[in-house]
């Protein structure tokens, strides 16, 4: 441990990635061997979901690595781009009308860049209220000016919701990088890493737990695998992982356990909510509507982060007064 502490923050983060990619490589190797050994006819669905989650973990890790490599400015732009692509996917599946055009332009080309600009400038007070207060007000005004009363509330609600999840939620990820704790300069990447790992672990464990426990699903219409117990097991395991990683965070072990539990629980619940939305839109995965042919469902991958990041960010900020 002493040797580790003597490393510079950059070296510590570098080491972290080395360990992380190594572990992922091992799991992937193991999974592909397991896949060769057996034919998975009856458990095929759960197995495929596990593979998908594993892939999501890879994507998350690479994403995080790139964000760290490119520094605060780079990572803000990076997450801004992800937010853009996620919102694009979200809006595609909502039945917007012609008269929503101006509102959508506002969302994509004004709200989104501004929100990420505010993050980049570390104006955390403005950043917190910009979308809930100002944009919440501006969107229906622009919509009303288009002069189409047809399903007005519904159309606005969809766009507002998309903005909150894809822009507001995701913008908290780079904000974590820029949060300044005492004696923790330059280590914001660890905090984001902590969040990403904890939510990803919760997701994978919940999936596996639902496979082994075979509990009655809580809401069969929405998800056949989501049960209270599997959700709790996922969050619980992730919380202990979080506690074990306390030394990379500004938290003490107990604090890390609690914040990890909060983040993990929110992430998996967020995924559950997204599932409900997907059912409503009549698709299995986000992405292109005729997307069986290999469109990337980006929103699928980052939905847990979109939900977990704001709760994590604000509870940490509130508790530690930073």
């Amino acid at each position, binding site marked *: 441990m002493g040797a580790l502490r003597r490393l510079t923050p950059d070296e510590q983060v570098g080491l972290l990635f080395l360990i992380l990619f190594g572990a992922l490589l091992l799991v992937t190797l193991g999974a592909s061997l397991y896949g060769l050994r057996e034919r998975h006819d009856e458990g095929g669905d759960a197995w495929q979901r596990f593979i998908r989650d594993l892939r999501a973990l890879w994507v998350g890790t690479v994403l995080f690595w790139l964000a760290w490599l490119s520094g605060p400015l780079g990572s803000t732009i990076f997450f801004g781009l992800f937010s*853009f692509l996620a919102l694009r996917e979200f809006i595609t599946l909502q039945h917007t009308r012609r008269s929503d055009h101006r509102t959508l332009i506002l969302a994509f080309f004004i709200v989104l860049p501004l929100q990420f600009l505010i993050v980049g400038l570390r104006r955390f007070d403005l950043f917190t209220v910009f979308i809930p207060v100002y944009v919440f007000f501006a969107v229906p005004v622009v919509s009303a000016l288009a002069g189409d009363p047809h399903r007005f509330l519904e159309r606005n609600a969809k766009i507002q919701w998309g903005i909150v999840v894809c822009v507001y939620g995701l913008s908290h990820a780079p904000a974590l990088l820029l949060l300044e704790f005492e004696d923790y300069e330059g280590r914001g990447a660890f905090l984001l890493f902590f969040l990403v790992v904890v939510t990803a672990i919760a997701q994978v464990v919940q999936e596996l737990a639902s496979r082994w426990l075979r509990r009655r699903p809580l809401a069969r219409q929405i998800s056949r695998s989501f049960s209270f117990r599997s959700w709790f097991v996922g969050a619980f395991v992730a919380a202990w992982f979080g506690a074990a990683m306390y030394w990379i965070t500004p938290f003490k072990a107990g604090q890390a356990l609690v914040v990890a539990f909060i983040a993990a629980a929110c992430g998996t619940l967020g995924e559950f909510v997204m599932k409900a939305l997907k059912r409503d839109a009549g*698709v299995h995965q986000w992405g292109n509507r*005729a997307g069986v042919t290999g469109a990337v469902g980006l929103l699928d991958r980052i939905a847990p982060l979109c939900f977990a990041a704001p709760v994590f960010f604000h509870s940490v900020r509130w508790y530690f007064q930073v």
Partner: protein
Amino acid sequence: MTRADLMGLLLNFIARLITGAQGHWKGCPPTAEQRIYFANHQSHLDWVLIWAALPKDLRSKTRPIAAKDYWTSTPFKHWITREVFNAVYVARQRTDDQDPLEPLVEALRQGDSLVIFPEGTRSNKGDPQVFKSGLYHLAEQFPDVQLVPAWIDNVQRVMPKGEVVPVPILCTVTFGAPIKLEPDEDKRLFLDRARSAVIGLRPRVN
């Protein structure tokens, strides 16, 4: 790399960023055979979308049709249609002594592929309008050229008529199985068949 190549790259990047420009080859593979692609027409972006959905090496051999009076009116419009897209210019005003299809026939003789929108104009109300007869005449003169139907989906949401700024929404181009003009097939029957081939590619809405 020329300026036209750079412009092509830029336009392709923008089209992908805004619409995804996914090509789904359902009825035929994207090969370098000589083809006439015919599609529904809902927006100014239709051509760019098909062009971006094509594999890179097919793009230079696949040409759009451009109205001569409009697309040569300024140097920039002329440059972009001529250098970047290699467009075939047609005159919109019909003169008695000239066949309006002549430039298209010329391009097909050279071995190029074409993209045409047989409705003749943009429609934004559900089903495509009745096809104009140009497709029939081309099929008659070039029986060996494949006629590939295509459906462009969602693009009217990206840029509805009258708007100038596109909104990012995922679009797809679905390419279907080639159709053929049967011997002695009636013109109207053939055009209706072509139209229903295009409509048949529309992705089912849940």
